[in-house]
Each structure stands twice: as structure tokens, then as C-alpha cells.
């Protein structure tokens, strides 16, 4: 599936590298930190520092997929240098900085639990399981920032359908790779690892739910969840678990990392919903990266037509 085909225009063409590699030097290099640094324990401005490091990605062969939005795609530099991946640190610039040596090959994803024949997939098998599609999805973080990303992958259902689940299989649990040695910054992040997430079976089987192996025409950069992740566009970003190594069919609702950290703040469902506030901040509006003023957040992140029926009769405030 990895090919050398050159698309006419790649996303890297949008922002020439030399334009963004030499920026932001001034602010960080000015050394008058003095007492401030003693108090702050860091630089004079806490800027998400995009020390543009090259990331090893390769081109993917894909077709334009369904469900894509025509909203303006967020520049790749923003998506790769402003995100959360707490295993690599809590600052939005940390994942790009600290994940560059993360080892993503060889990689296996184990599918187990309530299935007739559990099996392990190599990355190569995952890439060949179904044709790759580009899906341009809105992505809304619980922290109120949002982006638009051209992901590449296929519906998770394509993989799940190759299994024969037992009648007990009601949920699908996911687990991220975790290795303290490769992720020393994870020690102080206040979360328990490995990072775990989960979906109800109908959510996991929904065609919008993406098994994602790439973005912007190439394989996933380490900081965005290489080599394979889940993308669930109608839920807050933390449901879209990165760098997965395990998929488990199970009977009980699986524990999820942020819910374990603060159950009143992060529910199992975590559907984007402007009417259900996070206890500490409003979810009514969001900050689309690249825009000055906030915009209104849309229920199910604008995917209500496709997914609202999954939650018919459910109290979305209670099951937030």
C-alpha cells in the first residue's frame, strides 16, 4: 500500500518549510528571563514551540472518501505541532518535540476478547485490509479548540467485520501503546497509562468511525498517533485514541482514561454537545485554530444526521 506515486500537490506545499522553520526564534532566544524563569520554571513566553522537526512519514495511496467536510483544512503544521498526546507531555508542543524517536515498527494490533478467533495484525496487514480513503473531518477538543483534518484510513467496521463476535460482545475497548522508557514525560501528567478508550458496538461499527493510518496524504506522524489510531469525529478528541495496540470485544462498558481521572468531567460517551457543559468550562463555543473569534459548537460536531439516531431516547445530559 505504500507507493511512490507523487500527487500533483501535497499538503506540504501549502506552507513552505523554510517559512515556518525559522520563525519563533526571537521570542524564545531572548535571555532576559531572570526571576521570571525562577518562578515559571520555563521560558519567558509559554509558547507552543514549533521546533519544526522533520517527521518520518511516507506517501499513501488512497481515494477521496465519503463524509468529507468542505470546510477549510487546518494547515498541517498546526495539526502536527499543537495537539495533546499526554504520553509525550502535557504542553501542546510536547508531542511534536518528544515523540520523534518513538518506535512504530514493528507494530502489531491484537484483536481479542469476546470473539471466536482472536488474532494479531501486523501494520502491513492493517494497511492492506481495506482500500484507504481520505476523510476530511472536523475535530473538536474538549478544551474548546478545533481543527479540520484530512485523515486517511477506512471504517473501523471493515476490520471488526472480519471477526465473529460472541453474543456477549457489546462494547469495543481500545488500548494505546505505553512504554515509560520511550515516554518519560508521561510520568508527571496526572494520568494512568496505558491510555484506554472504548465505544459501544454500534458506535464502533458506525461508518464514520475511522481506523486511521495517515493524514495529509501520508502516514501518521508520531505525534498524531502513529502508526494507527481511531478517529471518532462526533466525540471530543480524547475519544480518538492514538497509537493503538489492542482492540477488545467485551460485554461491559470499558473504563476510559479521562473518565478514570475525573468521572464527573469526562463521561463514557463524550459526544460533542454545546448544551452539556464541561463542569469547568462552557462547550457552547469553540476556537477554530486560525480564527480570532470563537464560533458556535454544533451538536455531535455537525454529524447529527449520521449519528444522532444512535442515541435515541437517551438523556444526553446524564450520558454525557
Amino acid at each position: 500500500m505504500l507507493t511512490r506515486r507523487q500527487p500533483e500537490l501535497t499538503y506540504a506545499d501549502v506552507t513552505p518549510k523554510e517559512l515556518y522553520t525559522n520563525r519563533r526564534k526571537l521570542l524564545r532566544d531572548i535571555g532576559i528571563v531572570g526571576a521570571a524563569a525562577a518562578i515559571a520554571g520555563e521560558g519567558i513566553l509559554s509558547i507552543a514551540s514549533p521546533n519544526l522537526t522533520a517527521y518520518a512519514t511516507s506517501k499513501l495511496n488512497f481515494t477521496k472518501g465519503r463524509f468529507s467536510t468542505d470546510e477549510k483544512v487546518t494547515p498541517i503544521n498546526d495539526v502536527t505541532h499543537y495537539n495533546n498526546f499526554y504520553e509525550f507531555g502535557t504542553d501542546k508542543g510536547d508531542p511534536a518535540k518528544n515523540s520523534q524517536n518513538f518506535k512504530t515498527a514493528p507494530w502489531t494490533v491484537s484483536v481479542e476478547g469476546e470473539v471466536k478467533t482472536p488474532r494479531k495484525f501486523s501494520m502491513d496487514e492493517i494497511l492492506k485490509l481495506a482500500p484507504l480513503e481520505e476523510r476530511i473531518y472536523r475535530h473538536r477538543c474538549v478544551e474548546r479548540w478545533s481543527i479540520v483534518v484530512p485523515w486517511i484510513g477506512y471504517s473501523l467496521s471493515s476490520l471488526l467485520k472480519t471477526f465473529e463476535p460472541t453474543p456477549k460482545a457489546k462494547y469495543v475497548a481500545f488500548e494505546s501503546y505505553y512504554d515509560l522508557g520511550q515516554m518519560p514525560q508521561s510520568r508527571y501528567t496526572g494520568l494512568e497509562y496505558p491510555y484506554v478508550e472504548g465505544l459501544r458496538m454500534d458506535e464502533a461499527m458506525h461508518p464514520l468511525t475511522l481506523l486511521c493510518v495517515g493524514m495529509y496524504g501520508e502516514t501518521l506522524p508520531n505525534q498524531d498517533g502513529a502508526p494507527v489510531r481511531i478517529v471518532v469525529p462526533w466525540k471530543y478528541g480524547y475519544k480518538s485514541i492514538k497509537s493503538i495496540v489492542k482492540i477488545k470485544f467485551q460485554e461491559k462498558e470499558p473504563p476510559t482514561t479521562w473518565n478514570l481521572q475525573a468521572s464527573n468531567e469526562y463521561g463514557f460517551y463524550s459526544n460533542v454537545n454545546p448544551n452539556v457543559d464541561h463542569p469547568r468550562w462552557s462547550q457552547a463555543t469553540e476556537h477554530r485554530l486560525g480564527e480570532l473569534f470563537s464560533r458556535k459548537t454544533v451538536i455531535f460536531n455537525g454529524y447529527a444526521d449520521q449519528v444522532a439516531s444512535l442515541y435515541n431516547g437517551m438523556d444526553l445530559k446524564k450520558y454525557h
Partner: protein
Amino acid sequence: MRKLLTSKWTKVAVFLVSSIPFVLLCTGLLRNDLGINPVETLQHTTGDWTLRFLIFTLAITPLRKTLNLPELIRFRRMLGLFAFFYVVLHFLTYLGPDQSFNFSGMWDDVAKRKFITVGFAAFVLLIPLAATSTTGMIRRLGGKRWQALHRLIYVCAILGVIHYYWLVKSDVRKPLMYAFFVGILLLWRVWNAYFRRKGKAPATVRSEVSTPTNLPAEKTFSEL
């Protein structure tokens, strides 16, 4: 040291240094160089500097007394006003980009969100302190009353730290660091007041009279 502290140029230097974060934010804004989320950078940077300047302001009295450098008082008002300056900017970054200058939306938010409630309260409580920071106001209020009013800064600093602590999701190291500094500086005051009441002040200013400034109210509020 004393000469350095009493020089008018030192005051100018402190002013210029205190302005650096603001200048950097302005140049960053003009060069479109404030990171990938400039609004967040503005909010976090101005919030950080508010807390830092509150801490600098609170540090003056303990430093004067423990280091026996009464002249440090010359910088306290300026540092406090810088804290106010950065909190105003911090508030504007919230009112503008976040609330689109919509006051009714802002009030809803202030009433509903604990972390915004305490942050907003801290901001409001700093307003009378900034307004009464002039020599004329000190004289009009009288040293004792002025001093009592300005003890509000303790509340502001505590609320500011809580505001930050409640904001972060799980990594509380930075808010705890601010809490540590504010805690030390406030505990020093408790400790100092306790010993003074017992009649054996552990740290005294060498000579109040030599406090070299032209503020008439200096002597009374030097006890703060």
C-alpha cells in the same frame, strides 16, 4: 547596594524589564509569531505574568525585612501596577476572542464557571488597589485604612492561584508552584505578625527613617 536601590535609574530599569513580556507579545502579534494558537498564547502569557507580578509584589516586604533593605519599597507600587496591567490584558483576551465582547455571555460564564468566578473576583478586587495606588489617595485614605484595603492583595493572589489550579486538566505542577510561592510569602507574614505580637520581632527594618523616598505615607505602610 543601597546606592543602586535608591538610584532613579534603577526604577527606570525595573519598569523597562517589567514591560518586556508586553513588548514581546506586541511584536509577536505584529509578526504573527505567537504560536499556533495565538489567542491561547496571549491568555496564558498574560495570566502567568499577572501571577508572577503579584508574587513579586508580595515578595517586597519579606525581602526588605529579611535582607534589611528598606529601599526595596520603592519598587512595590510599580510591581503591583504591572500585575494590574497584565490582569487587564488577561481579562481583555477573555472578553474579546472568547466572549466576542458580549457582556451578557460573559456574566453567564462568570456566574457558572467556578474557575472564571474566582479569576474574575481576583480581577475586580485588584481594581480598588490600582485606583488607590497614587500618593494622593494614600494621603486621603490615611495610612491605616490604605493598608487595610491593600491587604486585599493576599486574597487576590490566593484566588489567582485557585483560578489557575481549577483551569488545568490534570498536570497541576505549574499551579502548585505558584501556590508554593504565594504560600511562603503569606506564611512569612503570619509568622512575622505572630512574633511581633509577642514583642520580639524576628526581623526588623534597620532604620525606618532612612527610607529614602518622597512618599509621606511611607512609614505607615512599610509595616505591611
